[in-house]
């Protein structure tokens, strides 16, 4: 297992270098950010040249990339246009988004799996049809629509929660945004679990367990659910990265100053240090989440082992 983990960690190095270069290249292709700094006024050539020089924008792309990488290894992710260190931006943005993602994942796991088990056990019954219809609706309505509607209903009409999240973004304020963020994935988790459970209820080992006279609860949780969870865990694992990156819409609606907000600002202002730095971290999160998923396989099914 240890050797497997080390091999997986080493694989991250080329992925890290490749992805940073690609992102760097793409942001660079968006064009020169200096003109936009001056607003509607044309930049005076001397000041623009000075700013370009300070940001290394007058160097060729490969050289900019090398400078950037060299700085990264000394822990310097560059500076955003408003003078803040990108590492400071990360320090304030990532905890917020991670908290939001944790809330979303908890919703996915608890509601998604419970609904999935219920519908999987009661296939064809009204409960099953009802939940299926509901998940279909959730999947087909875009996140920003559900976001604005829930925000208006709970935040303005009922006044149960604040429509926007405060800068500190504590867990209790993230419940509604977390739910909005989780909704689509939650529907998929429900459907995945349902199918998997429905398939496994007819498996031999379940019949054996029932025949042995094990309590129903134990049959479902220990035998049926554990084997049915493998595809679900795969999905949730890959979803962590997707949720963190995809939080742009949710964060905007609820005014959460997380990764999505910083990325949006970075792209809008053509600020390559911000965009490259944040996406690089997201790539790492994605890789680590996948590694954790692979390790969890072995926990769920002892037959799956790594040398």
């Amino acid at each position, binding site marked *: 297992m240890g050797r497997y983990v080390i091999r997986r960690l080493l694989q991250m190095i080329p992925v890290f270098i490749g992805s940073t270069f690609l992102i760097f290249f793409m942001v660079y292709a968006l064009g020169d950010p200096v003109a936009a700094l001056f607003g509607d006024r044309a930049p005076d050539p*001397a000041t623009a040249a000075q700013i370009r020089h300070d940001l290394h924008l007058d160097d060729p792309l490969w050289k900019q990339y090398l400078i950037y990488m060299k700085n990264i290894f000394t822990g310097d992710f560059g500076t955003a246009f408003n003078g803040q260190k990108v590492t400071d931006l990360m320090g304030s943005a990532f905890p917020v988004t991670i908290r939001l993602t*944790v809330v979303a994942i908890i919703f996915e796991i608890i509601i998604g799996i419970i609904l999935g088990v219920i519908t999987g056990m009661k296939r064809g019954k009204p409960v099953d049809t009802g939940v299926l219809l509901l998940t279909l609706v959730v999947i087909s309505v875009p996140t920003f629509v559900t976001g604005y509607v829930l925000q208006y209903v709970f935040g303005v009409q009922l006044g149960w929660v604040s429509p926007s999240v405060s800068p500190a973004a504590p867990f209790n304020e993230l419940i509604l945004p977390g739910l909005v963020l989780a909704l689509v994935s939650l529907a998929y988790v429900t459907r995945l679990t349902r199918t998997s459970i429905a398939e496994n209820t007819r498996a031999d080992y379940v019949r054996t367990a029932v025949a042995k006279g094990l309590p129903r609860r134990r049959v479902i949780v220990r035998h049926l659910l554990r084997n049915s969870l493998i595809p679900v865990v795969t999905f949730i694992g890959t979803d962590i990265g997707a949720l963190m990156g995809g939080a742009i819409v949710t*964060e905007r609606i609820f005014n959460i100053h997380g990764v999505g907000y910083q990325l*949006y600002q970075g792209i809008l202002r053509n600020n390559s240090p911000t965009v490259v730095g944040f996406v690089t971290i997201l790539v790492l999160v994605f890789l680590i989440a996948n590694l954790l998923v692979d390790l969890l396989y072995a926990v769920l099914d002892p037959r799956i082992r790594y040398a």
Partner: protein
Amino acid sequence: MRGATRVKWAVGVTAVALTAAACGSSSDNGGGSGSGSGGVVRASWGDPQNPLEPANTNEVQGGKVLDMIFRGLKKYNPKTAKAENMIASSITSGDSQNFDIKLKPGWTFSNGEPVDADSFINAWNYDALLKNAQLNASFFSYIDGYSKVHPDATGAKSSATTMSGLKKVSDTEFKVKLNQKFSLWPDTLGYAAFYPLPKAFFSNHAAWLNKPIGNGPYAIQSYTKGSKMSLRKWDGYKGPDPAQNKGVDLRVYTDNNTAYTDLQAGNLDLVDDIPASQLKNVKSDLGSRYINEPAGIIQTISFPLYNKRWSSAQSAKVRQGLSMAINRKQITEQIFQKTRTPATDWTSPVLGDAGGYKAGLCGAECTYDPAKAKKLIQEGGGIPGGKMTIGYNADTGSHKEWVDAVCNSINNVLGNNTACVGAPTGTFADFRNKITSKQMDNPFRSGWQMDYPLIQDFLQPLYYTDASSNDSHYSNPQFDKLVNEANAETSTPAAVAKFQDAEKLLVTDMPAIPLWYQNGSAGYSDRITDVALNPFSVPVYNEIKVK
């Protein structure tokens, strides 16, 4: 036991996730609620684009803060837009070129330092110096010696660090020599770039940027970049316009829709940017707590006069015809819900008649007249190639709707559904790059928010040969000559009249079509009163009273 190890694994994974999530959660508590902070206005804000320095801030969000924590030599009257002496006790000149500035005694920065002649001279020299790469450095270009501290050519080095045109006489008096005659120059001194700076700015720049120190009615209590700034009334302020409330909390919103929702839910007191999608409901939602006032902003469509498609001798007729083909009234009413006013000149109503605004100066050329428009366009040889586009940036400001409407209006006049279409560019940065590097083939949207309420600011930066915002690259020696003459006049009415003569040339040349004057719109909660917008469409924060 194998079972036990497995559980450990799962617990471990969850624990890692939770610790990661928990760190940083205690950094700033009690942020948005604002409860318990009685007398404090909670207002929406946008993240300033650049570090907060007087000469490095050229957009509204950063400018808002600077206007709260700073006072300059002059201040623009929030109602009349007139430049009035603030720190200056007098600014005099005999020849429109050499100015003598006397300061009122007793002014201090909030850290106790006095505001004296050095505060201005040092600040201005810092702002203009090329090495400091200040975005507003060009505002000092009229001062003698600017070209030495800030040479224009790319890659050039400064040959001096201070401007020879600035001379200290005493702590309360200094002299400024300009490199040309500019009678209205004192009236530009209310602009943020000209604010004085304390010694703390130079001695510990990084600390100053984290928490700027000024000399205005408010002092910054705390500043969390990107999310919140708390300003509190500064009790040591001796100026004539102290804060009427205990402070202002500015909260960054990523989306003006969310700010509006927060206003409705009672979490916010003041929104100074009503989202376009809410304009229909805003009157029923807020009633008299909705403000819609003219601001010093004009929207235009500029032509790339450097491109041969638009540089032929007859092209001016086409441009005039296009101007007459736009149904401004209909578009401002239906798309903008009357938050824009059809433009009839190239300035803004906030200047007032005395300041140079002249309704109807553009005349028939800016009035919707389909028949005459079609005739003019045809006389001018028609739209080059039969097709044109109107460029805009798609990332902010929802420009698509009105550009499509303008094109629609032109197409209807010409009886050709494909003559004009919108041409979006992804980001503002990319859009500005294309414009400043002269890559436009077709007209594009352009907007101008005034720096100071002067007719000069609406004409010279935009239409003077090679001026900083002359996106059309319009050049007319007659226009330049009239502007120079206007600047050399010693009396304001004479200068304004000359500027208007220059402006009349724009009617025949039509380098840019005036579309509409933009209004500032704001909404506020029933917790506060005395809310107004100044001519720059920024709320007059210090006048707001909290119930």
